[in-house]
């Protein structure tokens, strides 16, 4: 059998996957095993597939994904902690033809930014919110988040979250689904290839639906934080499945009436 050269392999007909051109060449700063990179990729692919690059304005949060604007080749604004939905509200109202999204973590969206989240969704702002819930403050070093599970350990609840003392985790996505202004609300994960594919479909819907001007599209991604959880990436994904998903079950919480 003749030797196959590299040049023979690298041919268009052999290509099964290529990185989205919406992702820049900047090396991601995320910890190996983190879900952020995957969600960035899915969003980038959707923006490319729907040809929305020149229409898109994204808002980054304060948290691990604060530097998201380095990774995506789109116009972006960096918001103060928790305020992304307020920025997005104004942008969409001032330029209603654009595609506007926020990308926020659990501390940003469900603690300090709860009011902005609830009110933007309740007004039915025609924006898309991507909510990454890993149950911990990753960037500041693993403190308790509004979504930290009961008895789960974090640096500010080192003996586990005592709900009597520290209060209960907030299922903000469930609240958002009850609001008249929300249009499409779903909870997904990216911890297995199958879930990645489902998450992409959900993100694509949340992006496409914005054109309908029917209200807020909200996608929660239950994700991991292997560094903050102090686990290997594989263990973190398993822990996510065994602990996070029973508390934050995957699936659609609100779907448009077709």
């Amino acid at each position, binding site marked *: 059998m003749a030797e196959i050269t590299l040049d023979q392999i690298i041919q268009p007909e052999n290509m099964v996957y290529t990185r989205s051109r919406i992702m820049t060449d900047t090396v991601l700063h995320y910890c190996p095993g983190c879900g952020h990179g995957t969600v960035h990729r899915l969003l980038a692919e959707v923006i490319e597939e729907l040809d929305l690059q020149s229409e898109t304005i994204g808002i980054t949060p304060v948290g691990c994904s604060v530097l998201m*604007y380095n990774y995506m080749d789109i116009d972006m604004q*960096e918001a103060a902690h928790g305020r992304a939905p307020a*920025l997005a509200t104004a942008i969409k109202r001032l330029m209603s033809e654009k595609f506007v999204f926020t990308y926020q973590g659990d501390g940003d969206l469900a603690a300090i930014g709860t009011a902005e989240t609830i009110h933007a969704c309740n007004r039915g702002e025609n924006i898309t919110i991507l909510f990454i819930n890993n149950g911990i403050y990753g960037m500041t070093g693993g403190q308790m988040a509004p979504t930290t599970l009961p008895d789960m350990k974090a640096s500010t609840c080192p003996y586990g979250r005592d709900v009597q003392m520290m209060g209960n985790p907030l299922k903000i996505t469930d609240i958002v689904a009850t609001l008249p202004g929300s249009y499409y609300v779903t909870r997904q994960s990216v911890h297995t290839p199958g879930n990645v594919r489902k998450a992409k479909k959900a993100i694509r819907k949340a992006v496409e639906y914005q054109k309908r001007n029917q209200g807020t599209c909200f996608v929660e991604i239950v994700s991991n934080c292997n560094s903050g959880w102090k686990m290997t990436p594989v263990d973190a994904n398993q822990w996510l499945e065994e602990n996070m998903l029973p508390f934050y079950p995957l699936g659609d919480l609100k779907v448009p009436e077709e």
Partner: protein
Amino acid sequence: MGELRLMKGNEAVAEAAIRAGADGYFGYPITPQSEVMEYLMAEKPHERTGMVVLQAESELAAINMVYGGAACGKKVMTSSSSPGISLMQEGISYIAGAELPCLLVNVVRGGPGLGTIQPAQSDYFQSVKGGGHGDYRLITLAPASVQEMSDFVRLGFELAFKYRNPAMILSDGAIGQMMEKVELFDPVPRSKEILPWATTGKTPDRERNIITSLDLDPKRQEDFNLKLQKKYREIEEKEVRFEKIQCDDAEYLFVAYGTSSRVVQKAVQLARSRGIRVGLFRPITLWPFPSKEIFAMTEQVKGILSVEMSAGQMVEDIRLAVKGKIKVDYYGRMGGIIPTPDEVVEMLEKKIIGG
């Protein structure tokens, strides 16, 4: 001659915003400035010019809506009163740090805390020294009439866009609430221009635009701060505004802005009727402060009385300006009380002439 109307200061701000071609107003109700949003909502500027007006869920949301709109290169504004402006400080710092233009209006009431709903000038420090975190400056305009409430909306936007910096109209409850004749400027259409730095969607002909106030690299962060400081020096050089009233032959000088300057104008007449040659120096820009111009007055006058509705805030800048050359003192009232011309003249005699 523009259209003449009898209006409240707050209403003049709102009407001027529509006429200045503002793209958006985002606010939250608070006394004594609620008429701004009430007027806008009643006027339906969306039908007149396409201007967006939205009542936010809080001052935090309102200022961050302003941030989002400003980052798109839009002409956006908010208004509030002291406690609400305190809540906005984080957002103002971000806006300054991201070098975005916008207009802020503070119709000041007495503090601290919930204080009172009556007029005061006790937010001077907050406006001109930087109420939020970090080394930044707000272009601060101090209107002394309903006319200037209207005029400074246009001027404030102009300066904000010229320097990509937030501008504030530092008014007070008296000017916001009182009615006066105002000559409205002719409306200009909203701008259709897409600014090169604005986030409006990355088109193939340019690199992506990123609006952020973050840079984790200390060297780059310092370089950025130096760039900001250079801009601030340029503003100090070029944008100082002030008015001198009966200063030509003055032996003594009042310095006052806003409502206090109206009281002091009367005090000048009163003092002169008693043979005291005193003038009024009225800073119009509180930052940049007319330091050089006040220093120049030390060649002529023997002493300066700063009259403020505060515990004495601007007087610190006057002292810095005169560099100890002449006597500087302060007189003011607090808690929503406006000093009377009689009190002011009496204090000039006691603290400056006799002192």
